[in-house]
Structure formats: structure tokens, C-alpha cells
């Protein structure tokens, strides 16, 4: 199986604080990988670094042949290529507050990929339906529940069809039945040859649904 993501000797500091040091792991294509560890262990920072939102002091990140190097401001071109490969669902979703759920999902396909509006809308409605929130298509983010907002955020990330979908603490705002639904959804996505990398504290969820489990402790993946 080919390696899809390789994180090698990643080190990241903010001021005097070491967030990550010598973090290394790799993922092959497909499957659900869970990055686990206590709060403040650096899980979210790993995802942010892979998504090109954080600069790092040492190490490299290689994603589908695209390399992010340490100490550099990533070029616009590199970031553009990177973000075709990776999607990120934030813990607090960060939906665009001025747009309906549907427009949140259609915005990137239309303006980043140049998909015509009617195709983007059809695809968005399909995604919202698959995720069980099609009936909330015309609601504003502030009108959605935490679970609904999360599923709209997943639909938004999936709309640009990234081979690697990362999710930060996706189970945090879900009740047990919703967690189960999420697990099933992630499995289905992984079956479609998509790689899922998520962070979680939830041991049960990880053991039930993750195909790979990585543990982060004090910024080190063990």
C-alpha cells in the first residue's frame, strides 16, 4: 500500500512553549486514523500543520508527493496544491455565518473549482442528504444545533473532494447515537478510498471505528 501522508521529525514552538517535537508518523491511503491524547498534547496543531495553517521549525510533511518544509512561509502555489489534497473540519465548525447551510457547501466548489452553480448545488444537496441535514439547507449557521453544524461542516469539506479529510474532535459535541452515526459515515467515506485523520479523546469511539490509532503525548507521537 502506498504512503499517503508522511510526517517526519516535526517540531513546532510558540514562544518559549514547545508544542510539537520530533513528531513522526505516516498513513497509507484509505482507512480511519485516530490521533489520540490528552488536551494540550498537540493533536490539533498536527492537523493545522498538515493543512498549512501553521509554520513549523523542523521536519517535513509529505502529502501525496507534495512536500511542506520547515521554517518556510509556504508559497501560494504550494498551498493551493496542498488544499486540493486535504480538507479540515474544525472542532467549532467555523461555518460562514452570513451564508445558509447550502451556500456554505456550494461556495468552495463554485469559486475554487469553478463548478457551475446548479451542479454545485445538486452535489451539495446530495452531501447534505447523505449527512442527514438536507432539511436544514436554508438555515443559517446560528440556527443549527451542534450536531447539525458539524455535519454541514463535513459536507462543506467533502464538497471539494479532498483525498485526506481531517477532523478535529468530531465526537466532542455528539451524543452516543450521533457518535455511532458519525462512525458509520467515516467508515463509508474510508471505503470510498478516502483517508480520514481525526483527533479524539474518545477511546471507545477510536477502538470501534479507527483502523489506525496514534497516541500523542507532550507533542510526541508514540
Amino acid at each position, binding site marked *: 500500500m502506498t504512503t499517503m501522508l508522511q510526517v517526519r521529525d516535526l517540531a513546532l514552538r510558540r514562544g518559549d512553549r514547545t508544542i510539537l517535537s520530533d513528531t513522526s508518523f505516516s498513513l497509507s491511503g484509505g482507512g480511519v486514523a485516530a490521533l489520540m491524547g490528552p488536551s494540550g498534547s498537540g493533536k490539533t496543531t498536527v492537523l493545522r500543520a498538515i*493543512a*498549512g*495553517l501553521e509554520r513549523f521549525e523542523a521536519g517535513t510533511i509529505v502529502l501525496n508527493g507534495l512536500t511542506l518544509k520547515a521554517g518556510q512561509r509556504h508559497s*501560494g502555489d504550494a*498551498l*493551493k496544491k496542498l*488544499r*486540493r489534497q*486535504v*480538507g*479540515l473540519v*474544525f472542532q*467549532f465548525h*467555523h*461555518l*460562514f*455565518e*452570513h*451564508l*445558509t447551510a*447550502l*451556500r456554505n457547501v456550494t*461556495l*468552495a466548489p463554485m*469559486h*475554487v*473549482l469553478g463548478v457551475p452553480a446548479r451542479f454545485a448545488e445538486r452535489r451539495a444537496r446530495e452531501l447534505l442528504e447523505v449527512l442527514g441535514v438536507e432539511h436544514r439547507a*436554508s*438555515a*443559517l449557521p446560528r440556527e443549527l444545533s451542534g450536531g447539525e453544524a458539524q455535519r454541514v*461542516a463535513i459536507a*462543506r*469539506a467533502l464538497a*471539494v473532494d479532498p483525498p485526506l479529510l481531517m477532523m478535529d474532535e468530531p465526537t466532542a459535541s455528539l451524543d452516543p447515537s450521533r457518535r455511532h452515526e458519525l462512525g458509520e459515515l467515516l467508515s463509508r467515506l474510508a471505503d470510498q478510498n478516502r483517508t480520514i485523520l481525526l483527533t479524539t479523546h474518545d477511546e471507545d469511539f477510536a477502538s470501534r471505528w479507527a483502523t489506525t490509532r496514534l497516541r500523542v503525548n507532550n507533542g510526541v507521537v508514540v
Partner: protein
Amino acid sequence: MKQQSARRSLLFSLRRRFAFSLCPFPLSLCCFASALLLFYSSAQAKQQELRWAGDPEGGAPFVEADPTDPNKVTGFDVEIAELIAKGVSRTPRFLFAPYASIDQAIERGTADIGLSGMEDTPARRAGMATTIPYYAFREVLAVRDADAGTFRRLADLKGRRVGTLGGTIAYEILLQAERRYGLQAVSYDDDVHPYSDLSLGRVDGVLLDNVLAERRRKTMSGITVQPDPVATSHYVGVLASRNASLRDAANEVLRTAMGDGTLERIFRKWGVWNDDQPALYARLIARQPVPPVAMADSDGTIGVATLSRWQATLRYVPSLIKAAAVTLVLSCLSMALAVALGVLIASGRVYGTAVPRLVLTGYVELMRGTPVLLQLFVIYYGLASVIKLPAFVAALLGLALNYAAYESEIYRGALEAVPTGQLEAARTLGFSERQVLQLVRGPQAFRIALAPMTNDFVALLKDSSLVSVLTVVELTKQTQIFATNLGSWVIPGTLCATIYLVMSLPLGALARRLERHWKAPTV
């Protein structure tokens, strides 16, 4: 001195307050009587003063700050005030009042008499207690030397701009001449800039009294004062109508000074004595009536006070509406420009590198930290040697540049108020920074900025009144002119307030509608 004595009497009364409660009744009565006596004597002292109001900005020979001691004033009006004060056994005390507000200062009792080249208008005679005239002047036309042969009279200035001080007899004459000869009257707030604009070619003539014209001709080259007067009038002292007895006493002092040569000595000293004065004095000593204004060549009436209030109002309503249109157009254009510049400045400060950020911050601080009035002066008069901007353009630019600084701060705040998480979400979806601004940050910032923006527009609508210093006659200036000529602020003020409300209330409604529209989801 006065403050010290007030402090002493306060201490005295405090000490006595304690004594009051313990002392027997006769002693308390004594203290009370002493306190009353103190108050009475202080009030008496005040009455011994003749508080006279003038505007030193008018300068010599009227009233100016004494070059040897700027805390004192000097000028022929100062000497006339001293003369009248001495004649009525009082001590003169000078009080500053802006020229256009001297009547109001007198009416509300801030000062007893106004002396600062106050014109003898029908409105003043009707609404105030004016003294007999003490100086006769001529309204004279000043033109550039090169035009001296062409522009001899107002009738020669068809289609030309002619400047003067707003709210004066000369301005009323120019308004009549607008209708009769088709010239354009331009109103100034001072008597210096009409002449400098004449030199610069912004106006082709200036109509003002001979005292002001001669003063300017002596200091500026290239100006010819035409010999034939357009009209004649006088300077008078202005008192409140309830103060007729003091006015009568002042009249007797002036008549005596006309007869014994005191006034002649004063005016000779200031270099403004001429043959018009003996003729005026002879009529006044003989107690013959003197009309306020005499036109040299027409049967025109000057000032609206000779008309009824309603006739006057009807006459001024079209010009008020025209001025309101100037206010509205100026405000809309200035705001549009301020918004565009504000967006650029805010974007530069949020997205720019260190140097542009520093420059833009400097600009914002400069514009916010200095008065808009000063900025308007610099743009119109200060830059005139480099670029001669038309008054309206200078006003538009001045307001826009000033408001752009405030707008940019609103937009910067609004841009920074959009949660960073949303911006990061947009970036991870592959949007470029420009797309993030256009599709995510900008629309949300606009919603945040809308309410303060509307607020600023309403403020700008009213701040636009400041541009009258650049000769743009907008609503407030036109109201002021109307009020000066009518001798009352009641009708002009009410009309002006109504027009401002009619303009600003729909703006508020429009803003609320826009806010509702923009708060609705974008489907």
C-alpha cells in the same frame, strides 16, 4: 481681583453658617444683612461696567488685538466704546463675540452694546435698539487692475462671480444684482479671502465697504477700487431693544462727540476720516432722520426686514431648498468618496506590510487629530498657490479625506471582528486571500459596519455646514444669512431644522432597511 473677593465672601459665609446656629437672633440678622450688602455691592460693581462686544478678527481699524499687548484691543470701535462708557459714567469692558453672533450676544444680555463695524441695516433698526450712526461708509466694488476698465459697476459683471461677507448689506445687494444682472454672489466668512480670491481669479469682483476695501488695497497689489459707490450706509452701536434708555444716553454722547470734534479726531487717527462724515454729523446733530441704506442707482430695498416675516420667508424658501440640495449632493459625493478611500485604507492596514501600515496609520491619526475646518482651509486656501481647486471640489475633497479616516477605522474594526476561524476554514477550502476577503470577510464586515456608517453619513450631512468657510453656500450658511437679514432665528432655524430632518430621517429608515436586508440569509 474679583475671584479673590468672591473666595473671601464664600469663606466668610461658611464661617458664619456655623455661627448662625449658635448665635442669638440679632447677631444672625446682622450677619445676613452683611452678606446681602456684599452681594449688592458686587452687583453694583458689575452695573458700573459697560460690557461691549466686538470681534478682533475683524482687525484694524475696527477692533484688533493690540500688537504691543495682545491681551488688549485697539481700534476706532475700542475708542468709541471708551467714549460712550465715559459719557455714561461706566468702565468699558471688552467681550469677544464672533461678528455674526454679536446681535445674539446683545439680545441675550451677554454684553450691553455691540461695536465692531456693525452695519446699519433695516433688520437691526426693526429688531434691536441701534444708536445713531457714527460713521458713514460706501459699498465699493474692487476688481483686478486689468479689469478696471471693463468691470466698473455690478451691471458689468453678468455671469461673473462677485464675493463679499455673508449676511451683510453688500451680500443683500449682490443677491439683488444676481436677479437683476445675472452675476453670481459668493459668500465669505471673513473679509480677507474675498480679496485673495480676487487676485487668484476665483472671483472677478468684491463688494465691501470702503474701509475694508482701502485696508486691503494698501496691503495687496493689483487691485482697483472703483470710485463710484454702489450704496451707502453706516456703522452703529447695537443694543437690546429693552435697553433703549442706555441707547438714548449713548446717542447723546455720540452727538456731543460729533459736535466737539472727538469723533473726527478718532477717525483721523485711524486714517478713515473723509468728507462723508461731516455731512452725516450735520444731519444727526440737527436730529434729521437718516435712512439705513441708500442705493446709488436703484429703487431696490435692502434686507428682508422691510417685508413681512411671511413674505421674507417665501422669498428665502427657494434659496433654502437650493442650499439643501447643495448639502445633500455634497454629503452624498463626499460619503461615497470617503467610503471608497476608507475601504482602501482599512484594507492596507489589515493586509499591508509594515511600511504601508505605518503610513496609513499616520494618515488616520493626522486627519482625526486635526480639525476638519483647518483641513478645509489648507485644501482651499493653503494649496491655492499650487492648485486652484473650485470651492465645491475643495469642500468635497476636504470632507471626504477627513471622513475616510473615520470610515477606515470602522472598516478595520469590522474586518477584524470577523472570526479568524472562518478565515482559516475558507483558506483550508482553497480560497485565495482575495477570495476570502470578497466572499467571507468583506460581506460580514459590511454588515458590522453598516450601522456606524449610516451614523457617520448623518453626521456628515450636518458637518457639511463647515464648508461655508470655502464660500459654498449650503443649508446652514443660507439659514444664517436669512436669519441675519430677518433679524430673527425663529423661522429660519425652524425651517433649517425641518429640512435637515427631512433629509436625515429617510437615511435612517434606509439604513434600517439595508440592515434587515443584509441580515437575512444569503441563499
